[in-house]
């Protein structure tokens, strides 16, 4: 530095400027060859332990986790349970214990065998508070593990009706015990290993993930030799990727863009219902404590118009928190769109368009497709009957904080995803006033729900949920709006099988 002269400094700066002008080549306007699948994905994965930390239960990470790791139990595209690494599964006769039979001959990506010891270690790890699984207290119910041949049995105490479903979705993957012990937590983050259809190859944090086919996968070698997930979190960049052809698949673009892209030659499309349900939480304190106000609010929302005009038909209007793919869904439970009845109900409580009920409604802007626009439309519909809502836009982080503190505004937009398809994971927690995520703290259905938590007769349990669901709809403790659809655009040289859990993973694609 001491020898640097003014002239040398300026010359160096000039040379650097010239270096920026290197000649560039025309970029190839196509993704890699037929043995490579490139997915412009809408989220970036952050960590590789799929059973620990917040990323373990992030729905957007599951596609990548499922490509590398096997869940205990698989899910069919319609969310029903299916054989996977665990070939047979079920409750014992009195439904107090679960038996899981590990598939014979499974291998980890390093060629070593997957053993029942691995399965037990993984199950115990889920319930270990030091590991930090967000549902640790749920999995801590699994105890007294016993192994007989390929079968692992364990008690579920306290009993949880949806434990089998729980082992099929978030944060429930098989990790290799010996390898994890050898490389440690840090080593596993650098080179994760599982028994899934694809092996980890390269990960550029915030940019891409590259996978290689695992030829010894128990379900057969996967169709693509190489899979690349590009983490294109910006929707316009994803559209650019598929439009230019540098990615073979993309997803979650605005519906307007979806309609434009699906007409382009060389591209195929799918837009299908997923397990996310849009809803309005009502706060049991404040104006919505009044039955008439709540019911009027529910009756004055024209959900079909919202779906058709705002979501361009890419959503399904719902009257219950359970979507059709969920167990316990009852299509006979309906809430009519009846603004005249809403006016009459409000009049009973002394409200009218001249003397409206005034309150705040909270919504995110852009967190879910058309969230703000949906609320704008609802506010207009409500104004016609005597409900005057002021919109407050906030971040999703604030929503979750307020929700767990029971401080949401009288009405708040939210979405509830439940790809386990069991009603306990949505209705059971969203409406139970003792649960942290419940906004309705009135407690009117708590006893009924808690009775269902310990109901071991499956038919009675699901019938019970239908009855509770009807009570909730009739009393408008919550206002379900619609089921979200997921738009996917892909090259027409591919064949795609949609999955209701919203997965976009390589095993869903084949060459057409």
């Amino acid at each position: 530095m001491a020898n640097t002269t003014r002239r040398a400094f300026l010359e160096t700066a000039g040379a650097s400027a010239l270096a920026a002008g290197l000649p560039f080549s025309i970029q190839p306007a196509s993704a890699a060859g037929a043995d490579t699948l490139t997915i412009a994905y809408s989220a970036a994965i952050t960590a590789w332990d799929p059973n620990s930390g917040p990323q373990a239960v992030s729905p957007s990470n599951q596609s990548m986790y499922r490509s590398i790791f096997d869940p205990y139990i698989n899910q069919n595209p319609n969310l029903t349970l299916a054989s996977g690494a665990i070939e047979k599964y079920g409750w014992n006769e009195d439904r107090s214990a679960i038996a899981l039979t590990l598939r014979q001959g499974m291998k980890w990506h390093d060629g070593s065998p997957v053993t029942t010891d691995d399965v037990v270690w993984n199950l115990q790890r889920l319930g270990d508070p030091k590991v930090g699984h967000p549902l640790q207290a749920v999995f801590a119910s699994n105890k007294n593990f016993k192994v007989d041949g390929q079968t692992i049995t364990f008690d579920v105490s306290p009993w949880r009706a949806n434990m089998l479903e729980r082992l099929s979705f978030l944060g429930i993957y098989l990790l290799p015990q010996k390898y994890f012990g050898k490389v440690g937590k840090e080593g596993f983050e650098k080179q994760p290993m599982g028994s899934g259809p694809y092996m980890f190859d390269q990960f550029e944090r915030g940019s891409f993930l590259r996978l290689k086919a695992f030829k010894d996968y128990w379900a057969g070698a996967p169709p693509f030799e190489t899979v690349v997930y590009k983490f294109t979190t910006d929707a316009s960049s994803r559209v650019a990727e598929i439009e230019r052809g540098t990615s073979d698949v993309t997803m979650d673009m605005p519906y307007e863009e979806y309609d434009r892209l699906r007409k382009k030659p060389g591209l195929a499309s799918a837009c299908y219902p997923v397990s996310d349900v849009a809803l309005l939480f009502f706060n049991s304190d404040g104006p919505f404590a009044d039955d008439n106000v709540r019911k009027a609010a529910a009756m004055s929302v024209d959900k079909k118009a919202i779906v058709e005009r705002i979501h361009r038909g890419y959503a399904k209007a719902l009257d219950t928190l359970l979507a059709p793919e969920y167990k316990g869904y009852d299509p006979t439970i309906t809430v009519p769109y009846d603004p005249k009845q809403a006016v009459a109900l409000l009049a009973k409580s002394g409200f009218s368009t001249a003397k409206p009920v005034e309150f705040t409604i909270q919504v995110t802007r852009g967190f879910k497709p058309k969230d703000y626009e949906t609320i704008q439309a609802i506010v207009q519909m409500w104004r016609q009957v005597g409900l005057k809502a002021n919109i407050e836009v906030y971040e999703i982080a604030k929503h979750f904080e307020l929700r767990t503190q029971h401080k949401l505004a009288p009405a708040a937009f939210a979405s509830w995803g439940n790809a386990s398809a069991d009603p306990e994971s949505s209705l059971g927690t969203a409406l139970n006033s003792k649960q942290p995520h419940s906004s309705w703290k009135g407690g009117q259905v708590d006893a009924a729900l808690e009775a269902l938590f310990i109901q071991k007769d499956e038919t009675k349990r699901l019938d019970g949920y239908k009855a509770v669901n009807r009570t909730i709809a009739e009393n408008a403790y919550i206002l379900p709006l619609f089921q979200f659809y997921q738009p996917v655009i892909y090259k027409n040289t591919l064949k795609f099988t949609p999955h209701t859990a919203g997965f976009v993973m390589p095993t869903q694609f084949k060459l057409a």
Partner: protein
Amino acid sequence: MPIVYVARRLLMAVPTLLGVVIFIFVLLRVVPGDPIAMMIPGEATPQDIANLRAVYGLDRSIGEQFVIYIGNLLRGDFGESISIKQNVLSLVLDRLPATFELAFVAMVIAIAVGLSFGLIAVYWRRRWPEYAVDTANAVALSLPEFIWGLILVLSLSVMWPLFPISGRIDPVQAADFKTQFYLFESLLTGRLSLLREVLEYMFLPAVSLALPLAAVIARVLKTSLMEGIGQDYVLLARVKGLSPLRVLLRHVLPNALISTITITGLHFTFLVGGTVLVELIFAYPGIGNMLYGAAINRDLPLLQGVTIIFAVIFILLNLLIDISYTLINPRVRLA
């Protein structure tokens, strides 16, 4: 180089850094958004929430958390990221080279374009090149970096496929880098095809960041040069028979660069701030991209770590700017 001056400046940075640490620690706990509430799924129990608070040390009072945090910081421990579950310092140092290289290339482009435009506007003043430069500056300044990013993607990646849309390198090809400094490593090891690939991926995000800064540099330089050419020493140089270009470059420019460098240094902070959205648009794996994810997930240790390391960088950058004055203009002495 006056070592005493540098040591004094570095010592003065300590209270600044402590202020930053306190400010960011308190701010992150005042703004809405609970990291545990963000991470728990719908059916988490109150016990799950309590367990997670204990795992991340959030069950302690803010005072206790702060004392523990300062103690760890003094030992060089920035904590573990909640969302990424890795050491914050190693995460930041892992991603910093990508952002540093992007900012470096953006600065080089901005300085090259800004200086050229400033000189052109003054040399051909009151003629069409000056008007063209003024118009270009107004357009470049009128749009933020991320809008430039989208425009460049649409025009130079989709309509005319000249540059890649996203990433830092081709994800399909195996890239063999020993460090995270892809640009400098490929340059120093003489792997020109790799250097070209890295520059191709970096070009659009760098230009998006550079355009507004280039316009600022051009404007400031133009104003400084216009002031300079009215001075007596310029008249003397002309009388001595020097050509107008030589007078402009050898006598007026060095003096005008002082204010330009100051403004460039100040705007570098905005440029780094602009990397957040630009890195998102181009899926460029730098600090900005990571910072965005940390903010969404309310990853307190990561947000704190990135902010403190950025503060250190800005302090060092300002020091470098002060030192560079002496190299540009020998009349300036470090006090």
